[in-house]
């Protein structure tokens, strides 16, 4: 018998998760969880629906320092939020590739991160934008960078009895910008063969988040300035940024193709991000 809990308080939610242990799953959008249950890939039999909890962090709070996102904030809400679009354009571009409109109306940003698919589309831009997560349990809260949070395929720091209650995105420094690119087998809704988000910092430094090219989403950075008008220096930066990628061959693409297109897409994303920088705010 699958147990279904619909707690109204954070404390009750954490209790249900703690009691359920390894067989318990928080449920928000369910867009991944239900697929896993259907195929019996996921053996969860305690479902803790967070949508009725009243004292979790708000879906979204914008401050001068950045944005805080709660566990029930959906992709659909995210893609139309004006501040997110202005501050984190790569995140909106990425979120728009997550499933269809109907999926995005249900899927949550935090849930997508917790699912820790190596190909999760929103992970690369969140990594680029320096996202941090707050992991809560009955014992209290701890925080981690998203880069630390991802451990491996579908494995994160969030263990049994724990719940990610908040995701923080710092406000980007003036003069920085981001962009997202991905490659799929068809133009319509598809899982990424390769995805990449790039950020260009105020000093011209580069940061890259990558999906589907390793056992987990990857983040690397090179300090600035990188002269993007010079092919050789951009190439050197790409060598440095992309060395961590270890894609595999699967039904979506071969290792070789992924490596080659990762470079192409990263370059495109870097240049697109650079194009987005406001020249009045650039440091150099």
């Amino acid at each position: 018998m699958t147990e279904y809990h619909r707690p109204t308080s954070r404390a009750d939610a954490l209790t249900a998760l703690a009691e359920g242990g390894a067989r318990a799953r928080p449920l928000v959008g369910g867009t991944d969880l239900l697929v896993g249950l259907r195929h019996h890939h996921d053996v969860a039999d305690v479902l803790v629906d967070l949508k009725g909890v009243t004292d979790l962090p708000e879906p979204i709070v914008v401050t001068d320092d950045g944005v805080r996102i709660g566990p029930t904030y959906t992709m659909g809400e995210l893609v139309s939020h004006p501040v997110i679009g202005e501050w984190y354009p790569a995140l909106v571009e990425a979120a728009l590739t997550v499933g269809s409109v109907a999926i995005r109306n249900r899927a949550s940003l935090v849930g997508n991160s917790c699912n820790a698919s190596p190909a999760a589309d929103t992970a690369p831009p969140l990594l680029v934008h320096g996202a941090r997560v707050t992991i809560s349990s009955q014992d209290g809260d701890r925080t981690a960078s998203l880069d630390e949070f991802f451990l491996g395929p579908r494995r994160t720091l969030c263990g049994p009895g724990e719940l990610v209650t908040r995701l923080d995105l710092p406000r980007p420094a003036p003069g920085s910008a981001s962009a997202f690119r991905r490659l799929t087998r068809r133009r319509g809704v598809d899982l990424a063969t390769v995805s990449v988000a790039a950020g260009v910092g105020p000093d011209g430094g580069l940061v890259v988040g990558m999906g589907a090219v390793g056992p987990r989403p990857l983040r690397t950075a090179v300090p600035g300035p990188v002269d993007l008008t010079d092919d050789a220096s951009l190439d050197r930066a790409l060598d440095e940024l992309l060395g961590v990628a270890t894609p595999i061959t699967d039904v979506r693409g071969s290792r070789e193709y992924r490596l080659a297109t990762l470079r192409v897409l990263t370059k495109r994303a870097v240049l697109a991000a650079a194009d987005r920088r406001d020249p009045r705010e650039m440091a150099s």
Partner: protein
Amino acid sequence: MTSTARVPDHLDDDGLQTVTLTVNGSERTVAVPTHRTLLDGLRDEVGLPGTKSCCAEGECGACTVLLDGKSVNSCLVLCVEAEGHQVTTVEGLSDDGLTDLQEEFLNAGAVQCGFCIPGQVVSAEYLLRTNPEPDEVQIREALSGNLCRCAGYQRIVRAVQATAARRSER
């Protein structure tokens, strides 16, 4: 080699959950096991088979319904999650006869086998409610989660455009 699998233990009837939801404006109460999807609940328990099942994993859009006014894949929602919520299915888009959108589907030649059409109509209705004058690119984007193997895609785009035009004349 032997193939076996875990036998789920959710088969006893006392595991049924009572769910009260509003479907197409009327309150309905059903008793379902936790793992029952909203799709199956609507079709089998509520008795509204207009919503279709194909992939059962969020990839085809045949099962699209409005949940509190937003389009969702009902195969990816549990019935129990819909407790207290409003669901609109294809049957509930109009009280009587076809909607303008449904008429334009017919007019445009968008309806072939018809199996995907309830989902297409619901997705298109959601689009027009949220963006009354979509351009062609936006229509394609908004409906790209709804597969049509008869591939009436261009016809459906025309139907949505015609409906938008009709509604803007009103």
